[in-house]
């Protein structure tokens, strides 16, 4: 397992080296009359160890973009490089911990066993596996539910299991597709600060986070890639220069409100263009 050694550098992210580089990425589904241009000429960079959000309306190709970066689907045009490798190579090297839009937990496994799944697949020794599983279940606050089955948990708890599972094998990249999308606002805000805490405990981990919530993106991210609706294009890449560690207080920060307003205007101008 790669133990990250790079410390979080919460300074200016423009100075950090890029780890994910998307250049002119396009994705087309189907052909003929059913042809859908999901992504068109998408370019952006994710600096090493940073938190980058992809923000856009429903159906603009966010999940598709995540699948392309994670090497789960082939790219139609353009190029994505992750640490100078193709996404597929990185996937095969098990560099990505993915939290999908749905929790995707296995009903025949307990919480503990679900979190252990990637470790089993990798062949982590039993003792090490046990340690990592309980550590990560504790991290997402589900220690009391380790023996429960997924269907005995609430939606938010299920999503936390999925997060623990993604963290468990210590991937250098965390890809999260609207992980809090199904949660009520209170739980959602708690999970956001929780995620920042977890991330802070994993120095060197790069997070690509998908959301359609502007405030969520501003609170969490070092950089926000704002996308437009079909076909998904990059409208603007915004660096968020709000000091870390950020807590709920950051929501009232002047810069926070400014950036929020900037993105709102951007999306609004698009709708009326």
């Amino acid at each position: 397992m790669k133990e990250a050694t790079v410390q979080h550098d919460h300074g200016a992210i423009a100075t950090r080296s890029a780890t994910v580089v998307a250049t002119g990425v396009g994705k087309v589904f189907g052909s003929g009359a059913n042809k859908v241009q999901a992504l068109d000429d998408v370019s952006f960079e994710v600096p090493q160890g940073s938190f980058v959000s992809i923000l856009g309306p429903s159906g603009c190709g966010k999940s598709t973009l995540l699948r392309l970066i994670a090497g789960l689907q082939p790219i139609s045009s353009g190029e994505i490089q992750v640490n100078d490798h193709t996404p597929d190579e990185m996937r095969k090297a098990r560099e990505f911990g993915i939290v999908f839009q749905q929790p995707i937990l296995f009903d025949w496994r307990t919480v503990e066993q679900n979190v252990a799944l990637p470790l089993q697949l990798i062949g982590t020794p039993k003792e090490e596996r046990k340690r990592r599983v309980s550590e990560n279940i504790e991290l997402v606050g589900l220690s009391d539910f380790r023996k429960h089955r997924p269907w005995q948990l609430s939606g938010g708890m299920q999503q936390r299991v999925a997060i623990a599972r993604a963290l468990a094998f210590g991937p250098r990249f965390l890809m999260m597709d609207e992980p809090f999308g199904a949660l009520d606002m209170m739980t959602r805000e708690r999970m956001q600060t929780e995620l920042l805490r977890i991330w802070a405990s994993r120095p060197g981990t790069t997070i690509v986070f998908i959301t359609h919530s502007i405030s969520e993106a501003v609170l969490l991210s070092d950089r926000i890639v704002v996308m437009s609706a079909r076909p998904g294009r990059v409208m603007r890449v915004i660096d968020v220069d709000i000091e870390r560690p950020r807590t709920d207080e950051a929501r009232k920060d002047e810069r926070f409100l400014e950036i929020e307003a900037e993105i709102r205007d951007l999306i609004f101008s698009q709708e009326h263009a």
Partner: protein
Amino acid sequence: MTEPGYNRTREALITAAIVVGVLALWYLAAGILAAGDDPLANSKLPYPHVIVERFFDDFSEVTSAAWTSLSTALIGFAIGTAVGIVLSVIMVQAAWIESAVMPYLLAAQMVPMIALVPISQTVFKNDTATRLFIAAFITFFSVTVAVVRGLKAAPPPARELMRSYNAGRLRTLRYLDLPAAMPMLFSGLRVAAPLSLVGSVLVDLMGGSQGLGYLMLAAQTFGPAQATLVWVAMFVLLALGFLLAQAVVMAEKVLAPWQPAMRQGGGH
């Protein structure tokens, strides 16, 4: 939490009421028949207690016949299940394999057992082998058709998750597809278990010289006085079939307790 217990009591009461009702009707019918002037009334529809008495009178004969039927059915059932699972796994590896094999499978299922038994008797020249084959054959179909469907039950996102861990075919099969196929496997097994018994008994009825089917046939040829034995054999067969089906249900509760249909206990 009191609900399941309450339901179970009610179910037991209903079952008991049905048994009592059927017995009462039976006594009534047998009584009416005996009151008439048919000298064969007693062999056509004997009283239930006569059947029970007969069971104990011929206990060793009946149990040895039952053992022949049950043991061959069980072994055939096991073989059919194993072959069915293996074939299903092979079939889902590629769409072309499935589309090549499935039509034959469905066609073979149409072969009437009545025709298949004499053919396999000539092939095997051995009653036990024929019983095993027929029991396995019947099981095999239910299991294969169910498991092929079950192996495709895992949702695409789950498959994508496995891919993100770079899990190959074998691991995806072991960690995702086989567990996901368990409910379908058991639904196939529930159907197959009693049928495997019927398959074994069918061989007795068509020239075998042992088993519950043979007992029925032999009793009939020895005249009306032996008719009660036919009833005994039939009830033993019924009871064994019921027990087999129950055994499958119990195995399912142990091996796949996580299914939605089995969750009503809550807890873990």
